[in-house]
């Protein structure tokens, strides 16, 4: 199986520029600098490279949204990786920082952007340090800075650490935070491609998306596309956590069967337990029952069964786990992370938490399930950014697919698993 990203991740020295170059690094950049901007974008379009941050928007098409004017452009790299269950960009940044830097340089050249910012999650201190060291190396070797490799193209790359907000993974609040403002999502339109960071046309791409770019330039878009499934080119880094024998990050072709991911690649459910549920693409994606996981792990196939591959974070839940408690943990998170800008999300996420906690703690009321579902209707699609959806989708799917468990909690006024849910942020 051909790997795009992780081939050398086992090599401790791969993060240094010397080893990276010995193993073929920065060749793609040289090649790209000899290409036209349109040719690079075409190659990325042919690659069917879908955004790896969660929404899965085709990267080449996104790049085409920049207005045809003379305003300076900004390339922002979303390294916030805040979606619970997701930990794959972190691996790229710590094991192959130059893959990302090379991808950024190629993309910036294609977009004619001379300013670039990696907005990295505040908690990723180690990764930020590794990136900064790697950026210094790249500057020293002339892969960043003025007149890159004699091409006349200039690019500055800065690492900006976030301050600890999930919502800053949403591109417009990320931009606000980058500008030093409160991390609140912006109203759209205007979209960042027109008015983004510092008022300039801006493209925001995920770490993994850009790390794929050097391989695409070296090997061609069609080759990349052929690695994956239809409309989903290449491989994906999939972070599997929870009750499996071998949790971790796996690089697998787009469209790999989800059941195979869990049972073949990760060695199945730990200690031979039965599978109860899978959250397939980060905490906000609708939960799946065991009978639903025989599905290709790509954007269209997952959408067909009403869920999503999202940010590639697979959370595996074994039998004997209280689904109400899991939802409580998730709601605790969203109630804490809502930025507070829009009324439905600000108040609704907290209300979700209140109701789910009381159900888990044996104080659920008849009608609570319908109240939760009605709240979902009143919140989802009613806010500036998708955080209300992110909170609502698990609620809806848990209540739909595990309704009996919620009903049992309310009926018996206790948790059958004996769990007690402690809310972390009362």
């Amino acid at each position, binding site marked *: 199986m051909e790997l795009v990203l992780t081939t050398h991740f086992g090599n401790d020295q791969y993060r240094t520029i010397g080893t990276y170059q010995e193993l073929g690094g920065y060749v793609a950049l040289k090649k790209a600098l000899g290409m036209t901007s349109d040719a690079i974008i075409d190659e990325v379009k042919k690659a069917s490279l879908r955004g790896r941050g969660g929404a899965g928007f085709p990267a080449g098409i996104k790049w085409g949204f920049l207005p045809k004017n003379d305003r300076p452009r900004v390339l922002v790299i979303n390294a916030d990786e805040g979606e619970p269950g997701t930990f794959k960009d972190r691996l790229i940044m710590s094991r192959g920082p130059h893959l990302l830097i090379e991808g950024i340089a190629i993309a910036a050249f294609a977009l004619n952007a001379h300013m670039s910012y990696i907005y990295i999650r505040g908690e990723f201190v180690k990764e930020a340090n590794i990136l900064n060291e790697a950026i210094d190396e790249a500057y020293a070797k002339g892969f960043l800075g003025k007149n890159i490799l004699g091409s006349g193209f200039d690019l500055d790359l800065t690492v900006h650490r976030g301050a600890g*907000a999930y919502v800053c993974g949403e591109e417009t609040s990320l931009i606000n935070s980058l500008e030093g403002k*409160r991390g609140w999502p912006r*109203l759209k339109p205007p979209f960042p491609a027109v008015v983004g960071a510092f008022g300039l046309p801006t493209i925001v791409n995920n770490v993994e998306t850009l790390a794929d770019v050097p391989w695409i330039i070296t090997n061609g878009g069609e080759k990349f596309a052929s690695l994956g499934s239809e409309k989903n080119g290449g491989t994906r880094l999939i972070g599997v956590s929870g009750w499996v024998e071998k949790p971790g990050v796996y690089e697998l072709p787009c469209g790999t069967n989800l059941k195979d991911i869990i049972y073949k690649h990760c060695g199945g459910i730990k200690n031979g337990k039965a599978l109860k549920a899978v959250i397939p693409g980060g905490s906000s994606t609708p939960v799946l029952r065991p009978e639903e996981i025989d599905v290709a792990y790509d954007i269209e196939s997952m959408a067909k069964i009403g869920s999503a591959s999202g940010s590639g974070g697979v959370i595996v839940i074994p039998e004997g786990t209280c689904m109400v408690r899991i939802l409580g943990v998730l709601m605790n998170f969203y*109630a*804490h*992370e*809502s*930025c*507070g*800008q*829009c*009324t*439905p999300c*600000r*108040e*609704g*996420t*907290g*209300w979700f938490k*209140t109701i789910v906690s009381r159900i888990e703690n044996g104080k659920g009321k008849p009608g609570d399930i319908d*109240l939760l579902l*009605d709240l979902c*209707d*009143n*919140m989802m*699609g*009613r*806010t*500036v950014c998708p955080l209300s959806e992110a909170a609502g989708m698990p609620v809806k799917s848990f209540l739909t697919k595990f309704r009996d468990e919620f009903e049992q909690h309310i009926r018996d006024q206790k948790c059958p698993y004996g769990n007690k849910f402690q809310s972390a942020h009362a």
Partner: protein
Amino acid sequence: MPNIILNGIELSVPDGTTILNAAKQAGVEIPHYCYHPKLSIAGSCRMCLVEVEKAPKLMTACSTTVTDGMVIFTDSEKVRKAVTGVLELMLIHHPLDCPICDQAGECGLQDYYMKFGLHKSRYDLGDKIHKTKHQDIGGQIMLDSERCILCSRCVRFLSEVTKTGELEISQRANHSEIGIFPGRPLDNNYTGNLADVCPVGALTSKDFRFKCRVWFLSATKSICTGCANGCNIDAHFREQTMYRVKPRVNDAVNQAWMCDFGRLEYKKANEARLAEPTLRQGGSDRMPGWESVIAEVAFKLKETVDHDGVDSVAVIASPQSSNEELFLVRRLADEMLRTPNLAFTSRVAGEGFSDDLLIKADKNPNTRGAKLLGITDGGFDALLQKIADKKIKTLLVFGNVLGDLDDNEVATLLSAVPFVAVVGSNEGALSRAAHAVLPSATVFERVGTFTNFAGRVQRFAAGFAPRGNARPELDIVIGIANRLGAGWNFTDAASVFGGIAASEAPFTGMTHETLGESGQNATEAGNA
């Protein structure tokens, strides 16, 4: 001009119109909290959601501009459920302290609950989040965080209008709270507007706090007398007591704002009022009624003119008087007394503070009007000298101030005049030194027009009858003039204004009607 269909109504609106404003044009109310016509669009309260045909989601009417052929529904089942749903969420942590909240009766939450809510609460009282109440955050404002719906209007006002940025939102999610930075209270001259932009009871006026339930108040359209800007205001009163003023929107003058000084000007209408026409001789006061006092003043004026000549009487006009009053004062001096001694001053004690937003250095509402009506301020100092030199035997003074003189200077100066008649609304050095006190009505008790610094002529209306036995200045001037044989038969301020329009070029063609609620520019405004 895009053509749209809103709730089945076909409309044509200018390019760039938002759905919310298009609806307003069609007379359709779309509920909103964070939207304010004079502030940037936040789009965060989510109350203005409407259904747009072919759009997958409900759209915010405040931030969506209409496009040609757009079909909009503001009252579909889906919209109604969404709006009620947002309102429910807005209210779950609300403290429901309407009985002790100053905003009650003019509260956005109460109003929309009655129109769009009327739902039964599904939220447990015990689960409500409590936040800090009654915080004095400086300026004229109290903050109650529990009542706040986080619409961010106040934050935007302070960042966009005053550009002082004292308020911010801190914390996240349902713990979000507006507040000042520690130790840095509100520090600008426009804090009172925060109580106006706040759609709920979170930001209330310290001055108005617990004074009166708003439903007991009546309002009249008035003009602020605090400076030459002439901010348009609504005066709120109960019986004959003023309780507060609020800015009235006038894009040509004050947008939707007014300053903190102007906001407290109303107190003069309540405090230290002159109530009874009084004659004072040898330290004893007599209150023989209006007819006798006016007769006495007219007699003194005529007697002085007859015995000592026209140069022995003087009239000091006031830039606090209306155009109508100033016009008749001028005619009284010119036609009845035939005296050259008519002047006014716009000087005030201390330095006139000004800024580039609304506040003008000239603290009088009608200096421009006086000048346009031909009354000079150039002769004021010469007139004071004549008074000091004891050349003036009878002096008629209008207004409550005599330029920048302090109380002692006023008393000393006026002691040089055998007979001083003062027309004014409030007690002070002038009324104390007067031999005849003619109490006049405040701006809230009479009708008239002021001309602001830029030459905009604006009308103010009477809210209530003059306190005590005070009278509109116009009646006093007409009374004196007619005693002197003028034979004026003006019926009201509007008829006097008709006289102004007929003879004074800058006011040609104007009537009280044409001035309307937002005024007209005097024709010579540009070069006067």
